[in-house]
């Protein structure tokens, strides 16, 4: 058993026994060797179900809305803590209604990368440091952890939670030195090639199941714009125009808010690289406003803040000014 799992169980027991929370949200083993499941634990006895996962790809903060009225503790690596912070900033969750059991995160593995290692995956043993042993129907493979990590973990700038009530001991991954490499690869292309990428990689393959939206801990509108029927803003079929609109609006709704937990991409049954859209907006927020989301529950939100020195070079009037037209 990994020591992090032991620490989590111990901490969860204490939290429940001392009444610091009524429920602990974390992960448990899934039905496949490369899947983990979000679980809610209500008693100290049940904490034996909790694990520190290799494949904790969904953000448990997403379940908070189902537990309204209860004080909830969350097993929180960086991205879980940051999602809760944004929810606090946006008035969805009160800071004193959640207990953040911080975990310095070694990064999670990508289920698709592991699944592709053999016909049938029988067992996965992760040392949470360097190596992963994958037992497949064809034999055993030892793979460097780095090669199997999720893309958002490879690009993570905050593996250690910035906000917590208690931080478990452990070794986090080092913050990524090049978080925007994949975004820059797309940015380097011509406009038409970027549009083509969006159409081929995202729009044409989407089946409109909304797993990306539903998995997002920060998508909480009581009625999503795609579900409005009076008026209906977006067509409901897989027509490319409607699908493109859905993805663009979904991404823009996360501008200055997304914490890059990667739940959207992990949830997608078609493996669409959805994160690139929100990652691009994250990069914009950082380069234009030196802003990173989810770091301080008391800090103002990016989109509700105005500073005189904010750059305005994206405004049409700026262009006209530069041309001497106004």
């Amino acid at each position, binding site marked *: 058993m990994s020591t992090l799992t032991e620490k989590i169980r111990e901490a969860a027991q204490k939290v429940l026994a001392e009444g610091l929370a009524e429920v602990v949200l974390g992960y448990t083993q*899934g*039905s496949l060797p490369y899947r983990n499941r979000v*679980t809610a634990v209500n008693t100290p006895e049940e904490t034996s179900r909790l694990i520190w996962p290799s494949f904790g790809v969904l953000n448990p903060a997403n379940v908070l809305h189902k537990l309204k009225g209860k004080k909830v503790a969350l097993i929180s690596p960086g991205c879980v803590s940051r999602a809760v912070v944004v929810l606090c900033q946006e008035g969805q969750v009160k800071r004193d209604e959640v207990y953040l059991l911080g975990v310095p995160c070694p990064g999670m593995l990508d289920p698709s990368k592991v699944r592709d290692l053999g016909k049938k995956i029988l067992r996965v043993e992760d040392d949470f440091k360097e190596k992963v042993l994958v037992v497949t129907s064809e034999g055993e493979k030892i793979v460097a952890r780095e090669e199997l990590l999720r893309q958002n973990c490879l690009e993570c700038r905050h593996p250690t939670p910035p906000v917590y009530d208690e931080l478990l001991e452990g070794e986090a991954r080092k913050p990524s030195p090049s978080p925007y490499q994949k975004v820059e690869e797309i940015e380097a292309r011509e406009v038409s090639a970027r549009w083509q990428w969006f159409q081929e990689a995202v729009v044409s393959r989407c089946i409109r*199941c909304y797993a990306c939206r539903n998995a997002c801990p920060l998508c909480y509108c009581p009625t999503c714009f795609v579900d409005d029927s009076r008026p209906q803003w977006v067509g409901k079929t897989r027509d490319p125009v409607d699908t493109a609109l859905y993805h663009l609006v979904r991404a823009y709704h996360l501008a200055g808010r997304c914490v890059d937990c990667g739940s959207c991409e992990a949830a997608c049954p078609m493996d669409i690289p959805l994160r690139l859209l929100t990652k691009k907006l994250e990069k914009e927020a950082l380069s234009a406003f030196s802003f990173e989301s989810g770091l301080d529950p008391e800090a103002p939100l990016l989109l509700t803040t105005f500073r005189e020195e904010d750059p305005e070079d994206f405004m049409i009037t700026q262009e006209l000014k530069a041309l001497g037209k106004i």
Partner: protein
Amino acid sequence: MYYILKREDLRPWLEAINREYTLFVPRTRDGFGPYEGELYLEGKTRLSAKEFFLPWREPLLVYEARPGALPKVVEGPAEQRVVFGVRPCDARGVILIEKVFSPDPFWQKRREATSLIGLVCEEPGTECFCWAMGVNPFSGEGLDLVLVPHEEVYLVKVITEAGKKLLSLSRAAEGGEEAFLSREKEFKAKFPVSPALEKLREKDLMTIYEAPFWEELALPCLNCGACTFLCPTCYCFDVQDEVVGSEGVRVRLPEACMFELYSRHASGHNPRRSPMARFRNRFMHKFKYFLDEYGEPLCVGCGRCNEECPANINLWDVVRAMSEV
């Protein structure tokens, strides 16, 4: 009638079919498409063959958007198609959906215009359990031909006249009955039907409906549509009016019972407002309502839901709970 087709004769056969008909094949892991050389045979596709019969946009009628104008019913699709590489579970899914859709003229037209060539799996996939749901992949149910990969050849069973005609375009030779039947016998002996089905038949509907396990099992569910859209037996739909200017089209499209909007009434009332109620409905439909109505579960054991569910909801956790409550 049984035949043997050499593996190297598969491609030339597909080319021959493609010259006479519009041929669709599994092109990538994503799903089926027109045959252009690409062929994915390593396992089942993510999107099932139901897409041929319940497309993502089925125009039903067209109309002029002005008072008094009468709508015109759309002539359904009539193009003759052949689909190769349909897994027996998917074909069985078509049969199950047909129990509900058989009176629908659009469904009928698509069925009449489509021949299905089945391909039995080399071995069960990680999450496969067709046998547990009573599917016999060797039966050829819902198919015109069924192919079984066997050593260096495909064993072929002819199911319909249309299938026989298609096979005549190949270099297949008569024979292989014994091998086919022994493979079928072997499969049946190794893979039994799940005893849970019998228990579900006998269980009182309300006992399952009101059982306490639903809340716990539904907790991680995202209520997205991944399972329903990938499922080869989920057939729920929505009807929408698409109006541009004065021209309107009424279309039918796949919809998911997991969505709040699906069960929301015009009044605003929603009988399945809670995420748990929608989760429960999906499984009750598959393993109780449909089972009671038609004698069979609305599941073919393809395992796509178990494999792709973002929240790792496992169908067997639910079926077990339902059958043992």
